[in-house]
């Protein structure tokens, strides 16, 4: 056992002065195992969504609170929740799932303003932010704030009302949580305060779907853990290799492991910071 570990990680004469893990055939095996593991995750997330589906904790009320926090930090007035804009956002999300599209405009040419008008919201100004595949409310609002066009909507001084829908479904064959945020200003709008019966029931209706999936482990998290484990394994091996090659003053055709180590450090940084969601 000890000699196997030694052979796998430490360069010496029995492994041709290179850790067995860094041999071409071992690297190919690692690549194969990685591809297989990620394929199993993809299959499980489709076949057994309760075990390995997508898990989210996005709350419409929290999205509104975080949006208003951003506005207050930027000297803008808070937005008031509009039940009509909530309805418009919900109708837009449902339409995106029904017609399988990820865009502000539907394949049939329906624009966001159609849903706002259909909800009987007479708008002077209106705006829409979309997000998908995020795991929590804070990530959604952060991603919008990091995008100049979405940030402009969030901080637009012309807007007075807000409506948010969080809906789970499948777009382009991929299970996702869709967040639709509608902004508007209208002189005729009867606004409702947070906590009104209608808003609460709507918010809970969307949350119910999410809560069902909260028991699952996110396939994104699982894939990320697997990728990070592989990178750490390779970095540990490369570091040990570098250390022993340096100490024993070995001269090899493949040289020291400095370049591969630098490469995997960059990959490690990116694997840590990569985020799941997309905004539009």
């Amino acid at each position, binding site marked *: 056992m000890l000699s196997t570990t030694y052979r796998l990680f430490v360069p010496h004469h029995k492994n041709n002065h290179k850790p067995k893990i860094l041999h071409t055939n071992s690297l190919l095996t690692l690549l194969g195992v990685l591809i297989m593991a*990620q394929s199993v995750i993809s299959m499980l997330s489709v076949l057994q969504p309760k075990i390995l589906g997508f898990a989210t904790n996005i709350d419409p009320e929290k999205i509104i609170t975080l949006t208003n926090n951003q506005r207050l930090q930027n000297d803008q007035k808070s937005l008031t929740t509009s039940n009509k804009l909530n309805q418009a956002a919900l109708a837009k999300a449902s339409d995106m799932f029904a017609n399988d599209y990820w865009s502000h405009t539907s394949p049939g040419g329906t624009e966001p303003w159609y849903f706002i008008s259909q909800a009987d919201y007479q708008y002077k100004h209106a705006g829409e932010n979309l997000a998908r595949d995020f795991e929590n409310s804070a990530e959604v609002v952060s991603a919008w704030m990091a995008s100049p066009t979405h940030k402009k909507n969030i901080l637009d001084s012309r807007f007075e009302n807000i409506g948010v829908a969080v809906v789970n479904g499948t777009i382009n064959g991929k299970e996702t949580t869709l967040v639709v945020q509608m902004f508007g200003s209208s002189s005729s709008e009867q606004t409702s305060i947070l906590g009104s019966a209608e808003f609460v029931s709507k918010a809970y209706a969307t949350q119910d779907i999410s809560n069902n999936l909260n028991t699952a482990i996110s396939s994104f998290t699982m894939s990320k853990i697997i990728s990070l484990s592989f990178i750490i394994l390779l970095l540990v091996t490369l570091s040990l290799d570098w250390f022993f090659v340096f100490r024993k003053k070995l001269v090899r055709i493949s040289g020291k492991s400095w370049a591969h180590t630098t490469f995997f450090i960059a*990959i490690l940084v*990116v694997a840590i910071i990569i985020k799941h969601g997309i905004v539009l």
Partner: protein
Amino acid sequence: MIDYIALLFLVVTYLSLVLLTSFSHQYIKFLTIGFTLLYFIWGLWHHKREKSLHPKIILEYLIIAMLGLWLIISIP
């Protein structure tokens, strides 16, 4: 020495561009394809300069680049 400076420049550029994308996985995946491809080319260039370009070395850099690429693009 110039090879290692080039590699460092490549890594810093890659990480800087990743930071500019607000960590969006869509863009990161495209950047990673470019980064791993350039790393493979860098490996060949480096070993050619060192006069140690051997088919085994080419294969090693190819697999390392593919592993790096797959480790990022397999994150859904």
